[in-house]
């Protein structure tokens, strides 16, 4: 094999006395796609931050293109040819694609920016990548996938020899993922070294050459992707095997009553006459592609957005839901995929978050009954197995899985009987995923009804008692789990309405 373009050896780092990295080794060849995997908090991000000069290492060496290097800041790393494409896009939404790609190094003519040259260069770059983005298009108006492509174009235009992708597919649709993979493989063909960080096992298997797995700040090992199985990788990540079997048959009793009934619900262009029933103790999987209207349906049921029409019945009684307040009062809880934005007060402690939806129950006269709040929080920390030093911990300091459990705790405290989980395991690492799954099963067994939106077909098949599929705002299928297959679901998810061209 050829010589590595990048070697990191013996890297150690501690934050305020807490070990983040311990003697980590990582190398990258020219023209290689090297996956970096590990649960959240395993040390992947810290390692990449050290590589790109965001933070300093305590010990260890970095050899890049044969020379030992230390980058003091990301700009130095970029100048040397190491760039990172972040999970959260760093695009300036009001500028054009070309302006974003060349920001900070605009081609000049005298004292003025040479817009023509900039647009020409951007156009050439996009062509090289095989993406048809108009250089003059305002970035905020592009799809997330295309914004990501701009970000990649920007990385390439700096003549980088190492590109780090941090969960690049998290926000992309399937076809955008295909385009991205084509681009990444093309970059590999041109001898660029690629670090690929992702939680998605099938992607790792598909496009990477080697996998390095990290756990608890240490390097567990490096495997050749072609010679290992998903289970090998998962076992290395969590140190145990995680069960992955699809559910074979519905676990809902045949006589379970209908808890939630949605009738001809309409809200905007993405919720068009959606009807379905959710039974007591059932997990109804809601599948579909990006933009199918699944989240919009959930938000309309919950009153987060005002529906245009339709009926929602809870336990057979018609409910006028015009705001989340009405929905919560009717016993519905919504767990958004974006927990930090829509689910949590990240700067408040666990206790304050858990009681937020049911504060009335924690009063003593006019005053908040703080010790009762703390007691409730401790109870959930124990039963949901939330890993935290105490109930006073600020929520932002917890991992994604533990944050999700706190949102669950909030609705359990409120005694909500119907829970809408929107992408319950997005951004949650493999080990915690299994715990969330077990928790959802347990909730269903206790008689709660769960509507689970998920883009992950394995998750849908593994969790659901019944699968409902949406496409372009319409319900296109309802499949009992006994008959559900990935193919059937994908077929329904792409069942577009025939449109007349006017």
């Amino acid at each position: 094999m050829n010589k590595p373009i990048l070697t990191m050896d013996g890297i150690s780092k501690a934050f305020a006395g807490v070990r983040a990295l311990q003697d980590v080794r990582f190398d990258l060849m020219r023209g290689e796609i090297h996956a970096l995997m590990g649960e959240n908090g395993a040390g992947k991000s810290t390692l990449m931050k050290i590589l790109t000069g965001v933070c300093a290492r305590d010990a260890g060496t970095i050899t890049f293109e044969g020379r030992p290097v230390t980058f003091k800041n990301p700009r130095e790393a970029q100048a040397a040819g190491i760039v990172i494409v972040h999970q959260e896009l760093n695009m300036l939404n009001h500028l054009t694609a070309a302006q974003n790609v060349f920001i900070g190094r605009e081609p000049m003519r005298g004292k003025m920016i040479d817009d023509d040259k900039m647009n020409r260069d951007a156009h050439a770059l996009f062509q090289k990548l095989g993406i048809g983005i108009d250089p003059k298009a305002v970035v905020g108006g592009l799809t997330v996938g295309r914004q990501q492509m701009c970000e990649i174009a920007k990385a390439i235009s700096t003549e980088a020899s190492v590109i780090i992708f941090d969960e690049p597919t998290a926000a992309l649709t399937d076809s955008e993922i295909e385009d991205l993979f084509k681009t990444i493989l093309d970059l590999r063909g041109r001898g660029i070294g690629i670090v690929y960080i992702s939680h998605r096992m099938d992607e790792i298997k598909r496009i990477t050459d080697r996998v390095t797995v990290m756990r608890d700040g240490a390097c567990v090992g490096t495997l050749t992707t072609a010679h290992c199985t998903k289970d090998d990788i998962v076992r290395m990540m969590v140190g145990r095997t995680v069960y992955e079997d699809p559910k074979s048959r519905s676990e809902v009793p045949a006589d379970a009553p209908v808890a939630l009934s949605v009738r001809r619900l309409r809200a905007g262009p993405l919720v068009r006459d959606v009807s379905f029933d959710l039974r007591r103790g059932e997990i109804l999987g809601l599948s579909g592609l990006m933009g199918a209207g699944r989240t919009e349906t959930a938000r309309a049921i919950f009153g987060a957005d005002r529906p245009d029409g339709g009926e929602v019945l809870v336990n057979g009684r018609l409910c006028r839901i015009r705001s989340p307040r009405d929905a919560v009062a009717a016993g519905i809880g919504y767990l958004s995929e974006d927990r930090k934005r829509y689910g949590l007060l990240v700067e408040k402690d666990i206790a304050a978050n858990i009681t937020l939806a049911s504060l009335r129950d924690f009063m003593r006269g006019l005053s908040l009954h703080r010790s009762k709040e703390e007691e409730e929080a401790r109870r959930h920390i124990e039963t949901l197995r939330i890993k935290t030093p105490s109930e006073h911990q600020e929520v932002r300091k917890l991992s994604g899985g533990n944050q999700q459990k706190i949102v669950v705790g909030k609705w359990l405290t409120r005694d909500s009987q119907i829970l809408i989980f929107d992408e319950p395991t997005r951004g949650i690492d493999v080990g915690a995923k299994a715990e969330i799954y077990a928790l959802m099963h347990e909730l269903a067994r206790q008689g709660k009804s769960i509507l689970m939106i998920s883009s992950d077909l394995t998750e849908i098949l593994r969790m659901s008692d019944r699968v409902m599929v949406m496409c372009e705002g319409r319900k296109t299928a309802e499949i009992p789990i006994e008959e559900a297959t990935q193919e059937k679901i994908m077929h329904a998810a792409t069942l577009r309405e025939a449109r007349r061209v006017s």
Partner: protein
Amino acid sequence: MSGNGSHSTSLLSNSGKLFHNFGKQRLVAIGALGVLYLFFCAAGDNFAAYNTFVSILDSSYYIGFLAIGVTFVVITGGIDLSCGTVMVCCALISGTLYFKLGVPMWLCLLLCIAMGGLFGFCNGFMVAVMKLPAFIATLGTMMVTRGLGSIVTATASVTFPQRHADDGWFRGIFKLMGDGLPSGGVPTGFVLLILLAAVMAFILNKTRPGRYILALGSNKEATRLSGVDVVKWEILAYVVSGLFAGLAAIAYASIYSTILPGTGNGFELDGIAGTVIGGTSLSGGVGSIAGTLIGVFIMSVLRTGLPFVGLQPHYQLFFTGFVLAAAVFADVLNRRRRKG
């Protein structure tokens, strides 16, 4: 309740947390206040005198009330630019009611507070229901109230009854003077200020409205999606600010007697400055009434103390600017350390 045991431990942890929350920044602020006071005592002749102490308090009542009220709004992540002019407008209107219409003084004072609350409600309605940016909505109210004061009084100034006049009793709310009392008077207003601050601190930290206001300042959408009526509670924060502007109007009238139409601009910034120096975050979700009071007193000590060391009062603005920037910088540093 599961018995005394858990109760007493929770009390312990509460007080522990209280101390923790009171935190470094607030200790720094208290320290700064003490150092400032001692500095002026040492450097200025007679600064340590009782009369000076009372005049420091006198000049802090109205800004204190404005600042307590505006703290609630700032905690929601909003801003109230109108409280200064609302204060002056309320004072002018209630003074006019008294002199022109013969409304009894006690009713004028109550109406004064009520009018403040009404202006606050208008602000809250514009922000929470009409979704106007708080900056713009309260800027509008600031202009409206400033103009309204001039319209109602036909641009004439209003002088409230003197201490010994028939209806001058209300001045006793803020300062008792008379035979047998110290010549500087007894600062009863200080007791009132502390009492109301304690009540508002209780409301903020220990009641449902307070918790909701903190929550919606921290993350409004997450709070709404938890089934909380965020519109109601956000309006309430502005109403609190308005009511306290009304109270501030009474304090202002009883200390300074003469109210000029067209003034009031800039007082809101004093109130906001006190709030921010006291550690309330302009991005919302975090704040404390005790901190706000300390911030207000720092400004009062500066204003009263500077002439004692031979500097004109307008140097107060000059130095307050530095204090403000330093206080916020300390907060920024603190956050950065916690995050790092």
